[in-house]
């Protein structure tokens, strides 16, 4: 039983879903896989999926960690708006790129710290605690932009939205790197196991000496940091900070990506890669609908259908039904298989 085998057994449903959707699109649009290079940057529908999917992919990274602790972060969309606003404000106020980015990322971390304190120290339910910032966050963002769409023309900042590194669009580089880095940190250190332990049983983890309070705060701060990256990308993409619409409802897309990725909303075992594939599934559907000429509004209906399918597949009721039909409870079958494997 190799590590790679376990990994693929975990994420094949997500990969299959993505393959089916991409397959469907490419059947309908034979030109789908055409990739070209122009002005030193890759173009084409697959690149577009990777590029447009950047904000949700980034949010999904933080959201996966939060959900693994049995939490949820509803505020990430609003935090995106705040950080976008901070970066636009910083660059127009002439702070320079480095300082501006630092301020934007700090704003994200601060938002995460606030959520983390409410959850870990005051013991407020995550859905309730993060609702506060979800409601107030856009007001704060508007406060920073003073209600207008704060535009900027700084090439350095714009690079994060529409530039490219080795002909790969910058947003793609950022989310792939972030995803790889977080996966590495979480799996090479003991963080992954400790986060899963907290998600399964917070009290028992505390009694085993796990520093649950600090870890919970850290997880929400990671989510805030991912949201600030997404916020900077979104602002750089449109060359302005739109406090009203930046990241609007993206928290829901991010949660959806995590759910598609198979991480349970009840916490515990998580897979960042699966969540990222989930984010790509969402974006592939978006792109597919755009290509097919349907009004983009159909997206919502398709998303609803996806949620419903996942709900039905994951529901405990369905599982009992499957057991009833197969007369071969999966858990038992798998254990037996594992005992045979040397």
């Amino acid at each position, binding site marked *: 039983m190799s590590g790679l085998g376990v990994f693929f057994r975990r994420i094949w449903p997500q990969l299959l879903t993505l393959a089916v959707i991409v397959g469907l699109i490419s059947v309908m649009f034979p030109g789908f896989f055409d990739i070209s290079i122009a002005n030193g940057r890759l173009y084409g529908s697959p690149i577009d999926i990777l590029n447009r999917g950047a904000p949700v992919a980034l949010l999904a990274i933080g959201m996966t960690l939060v959900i693994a602790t049995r939490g949820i972060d509803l505020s990430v969309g609003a935090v995106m708006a705040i950080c976008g606003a901070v970066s636009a404000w910083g660059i127009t106020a002439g702070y320079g790129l480095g300082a501006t980015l630092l301020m934007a990322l700090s704003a994200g971390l601060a938002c995460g710290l606030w959520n983390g304190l409410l959850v870990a120290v005051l013991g407020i339910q995550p859905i309730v605690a993060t609702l506060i910032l979800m409601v107030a966050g856009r007001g704060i963002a508007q406060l920073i932009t003073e209600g207008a769409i704060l535009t900027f023309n700084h090439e350095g900042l714009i690079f994060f939205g529409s530039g490219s590194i080795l002909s790969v669009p910058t947003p793609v580089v950022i989310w792939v790197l972030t995803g790889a880095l977080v996966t590495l940190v979480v799996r090479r250190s*003991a963080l992954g196991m400790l986060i899963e*332990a907290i998600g*399964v049983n917070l*009290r*028992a*983890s*505390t009694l*085993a000496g796990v520093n649950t309070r600090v870890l919970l705060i850290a997880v929400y701060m990671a989510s805030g940091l991912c949201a600030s990256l997404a916020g900077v990308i979104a602002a750089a993409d449109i060359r302005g900070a739109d406090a009203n619409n930046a990241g609007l409802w993206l928290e829901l897309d991010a949660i959806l990506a995590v759910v598609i990725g198979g991480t349970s909303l009840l916490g515990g075992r998580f897979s960042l890669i699966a969540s990222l594939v989930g984010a790509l599934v969402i974006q592939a559907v978006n792109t597919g609908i755009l290509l097919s000429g349907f009004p983009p509004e159909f997206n919502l209906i398709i998303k609803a259908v996806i949620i419903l399918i996942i709900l039905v597949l994951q529901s405990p009721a369905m599982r009992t039904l499957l057991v009833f039909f197969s007369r071969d409870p999966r858990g038992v079958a798998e*254990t037996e298989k594992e005992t045979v494997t040397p």
Partner: protein
Amino acid sequence: MPESDASQPLLRARGVRKVFPGTIALDGVDFSLAAGEVHALLGENGAGKSTLIKCLTGAYRRDGGEILLDGKAIDPKGTVDAQNYGIGTVYQEVNLLANLTVAENLSLGHQPTRFGMISTRRMNAHAREVLSHYGLEIDVTRTLDSYSVAVQQVIAIARAVTLSGKVLILDEPTASLDAQEVEMLFTVIRSLRERGLGIVFISHFLDQIFRICDRLTVLRNGRLVGTETTSAIDRVDLVNMMLGRELEHEVRSHGKIHSGTGGTRLSFSGFGRRGRIEPFNLEIQAGEVVGVAGLLGSGRTETAEVLFGVAAHDSGKATDGDGTALNLASPRDAIAAGFGFCPEDRKTDGVIADLSVRENIALALQARIGWMRRISDREQKAMANDYIRKLDIRTPDAEKPVGLLSGGNQQKVMLARWLVTNPSFLILDEPTRGIDVGAHAEIIRLIEDLCTQGMSLLVISSELDELVAYSHRVIVVRDRHHVAELTGADITTDNMVRAIAAPDREAVA
């Protein structure tokens, strides 16, 4: 045949059988309950008491046997259905809604209505009326959580009796009550008996059984041991019926004498926390096993929790053998000081059910060395396999989620979790509760091994024989005080029982 005669029992179970994957929880158990009697149902954890209750009330579908109420076969489909037949149940954790008022709790689902609207006035009046039969004169418009657990318990009984009216099943109703509250509950039970109800009473407290019950039925490992009249049996007989086996160590009638050569390992002075455990002094030698005896809720678990920093102490101080002060404000502090703690409730406080045996064993050590330095998979696996062998943990492999193991094996995983951290002081709260006989003996042997290796242990147990078997010293806890300390030859079950049963300080004063 079903014609009723005078001796016909109110409720009768014949040959009830219930099988779970891997275990036979009930193997052809008979049980009968007469009207106007209090009938105790006894047995160790896992004997099948709660399974029998759940079969009687329809919470479980039985796999065999029949249940007769007033001579007629019944087949309740669930708690509510059983209630309609006349069988009401009150569980240990009060099964009422804390956010509703007392009156609403009493009438939920049966509120008096007028034109579809609930008549609050009539509902409240009815509640006051009902509760007056139980000697309760309380404001029924306040939410249930404004009242103590004992009052809530009586309200739960009142609801069950009002809705069912023939059979009342009380599942450990006294577990979290103090002596005075138990008295209040007993008054209620006696008056219900006079009203002709059949009452099934489940309790761990033997003296309560002897005080209130007319007959008793003992189960062991899913089988019926026997039914006796309480007045015709003494405590020794009863304990024999329940345990039915001689502990390996039972030949010894008193505790061991500690050599005292290891030197002092830890000393606590004036250690306590308001509202949980009164300040106590405690000194523990290297290689010594200190037993803690006391009833549930006496402050024995609280002692462990204060020592381990789960509920941080607010008075006194702790020092190690060299006299250096120890900071024990949180579990992390305690672990840093070389402590380990296996809590009583393994499911909620102990194991991380979805994680593997390997991860559960590595967890405490990993938490101690910090998240940066991950214990590699290979080391974790070696560690886990080592203890799977040493402690004989029955699992197909180290990757099995620990939640799928049996209670005894989960307990061993908990022990392994702490043993890999190589603690100098290990606290075990009810380490043998709810585990099978074989694992039971193994854990006792392990405790002895650990102390010969020089580890100090504090073991809380409600099985006094067991404490006699391995303790060098026994602390008796009663009413949140450490009331007695027995050493060496003084450690006998009799002495412990006497100390536990001694009248309360307040009563003496």
